[in-house]
């Protein structure tokens, strides 16, 4: 009984002599394999060489500081509210007298955690932030062995006070030369 019209009848004709010899087929396969040896490689040697990122690439978050070096985040919770993956949690605290240079407003986030396993890097937190505190950078979260290591706290999210500009530039240069060499 034929159920569909798309069924194909199996060809059960015996092999011809050339087909039985196998050698032409093996040779054809080898030609394809060897052709690939001379083609441009599709992979790169990752940690040494990195691909160029799109200018709008969304990577690991950064909690920015203002021009005086104080944290901009006030723990208003709008990033956590807008987060579709519910990756952001925070605890707010009140700024004490004498901490004005550390935190910009009366209230600040004493704990701010983003679970990078949950995060889908959609950038809605960046859009929701009324204080221009959170931004997605162009770096990707590093690989880790335990799940806990993917929960980024303030130690890894807050913008470093003094940015090691020279070091970054040196690394960039190294990366660029390696990339050019690989090309």
């Amino acid at each position, binding site marked *: 009984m034929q159920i569909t019209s798309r069924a194909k009848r199996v060809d059960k004709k015996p092999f011809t002599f050339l087909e039985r010899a196998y050698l032409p087929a093996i040779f054809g396969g080898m030609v394809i394999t060897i052709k690939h040896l001379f083609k441009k490689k599709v992979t790169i040697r990752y940690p040494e060489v990195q691909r160029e990122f799109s200018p709008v690439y969304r990577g690991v978050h950064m909690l920015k500081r203002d021009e005086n070096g104080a944290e901009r985040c*006030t*723990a*208003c*919770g*709008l990033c*956590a*509210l807008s987060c579709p993956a*519910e990756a952001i949690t925070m605890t*707010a*605290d*009140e700024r004490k007298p004498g901490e004005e240079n550390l935190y910009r*407003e*009366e*209230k600040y986030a004493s704990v701010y955690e983003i679970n990078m396993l949950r995060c889908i890097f959609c950038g809605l937190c960046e859009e929701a932030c*009324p*204080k221009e505190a959170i931004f997605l950078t162009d770096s990707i979260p590093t690989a880790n062995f335990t799940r806990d290591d993917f929960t980024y706290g303030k130690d890894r999210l807050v913008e470093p006070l003094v940015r090691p500009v020279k070091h970054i530039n040196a690394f960039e240069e190294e990366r660029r030369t390696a990339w050019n060499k690989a090309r």
Partner: protein
Amino acid sequence: MIKVTIDDTLIEVPEGTTILQAARMHGGDLVPPAMCFYSKLKGSGGKCRVCLVKVSAGSEKDPRPMPKLVASCVTQVMDGMVVQNLTSPEVLEARRGVVEFLLLNHPLDCPICDQAGECHLQDLGFEHGAVKTRYMEGRRVFNKIDIGPFIQLHMTRCILCYRCTYVADQLSPGRVHGILYRGDVAEISTYIENSIDNEFSGNMIDVCPVGALTDKTFRFMSRVWFLKPMDAHRNCTKCCGKVAAWMHDDKIYRITSRKDKYGEVESNEEGNPNWICNECRFDKKDKNDWVIEGPRAIDRHSVINQNHFEAPYESLLNNRRLAEPKILLQNSEETN
């Protein structure tokens, strides 16, 4: 009974009602907003000018329009009065101006403010205000004063609605706070930094339409939209003991009185408002102190409804969309 037309809707109300209360009896879009008027506080209203409406016919006997916009919370209805609220562009224009004035000295620190999410000024600005401020000058600043262990005063956010002074006058003997100075330097304060420690002083927090008076025990603990309001009660010797407990998981973060859709304290069967005492509000934060009745109904468009996926049980039962598949099933059985 008196017949009054508000926004092309005919409403019959008893004599002596104000335009605002007549509109609230009908409900819906035709209700003017109110910042200072509080129906449970005698003498409130007439200060913020947010509820301005246009009276295009004074009454049946004298159908001339009123020359200026009137404050609907203190103007009584007349038979045959015709009122325009949202249908009058003049009213919307005036209201936008009033909102701009209210926000002139407001610090707009909503990301820090504990009231954000249930703030009437936020709602008002969202519905009637301009998108951007035109104000360039410096805003008011005040010396911070401590008015006691339970209530946090942020004078910069105050809009001088006087509701909190009415609460102190009408709920507690001997008020110790009030409005000092006049005009643009007027401020809420206690006399020589007196602390407010009356049994019912916490209700000032509930009547405050903005974040000028907030709960110190809840200060910066969470945001209102992360919490779920639950109806709860306990046997209290001082007050009715009927409260809304704002919970997350099993933890009570704060206690407020139960509020209706106009942000006012709900009334009991006798019509008395369910004010709650400070012991219930500030001291009983343990879940075992309360009998939790169930989740409170929240407006679907409220920010407090964000990320809360459970619907109250009764609304589930009344949900027609859920009931329909059963009907379909019966029909298909019949056709088979």
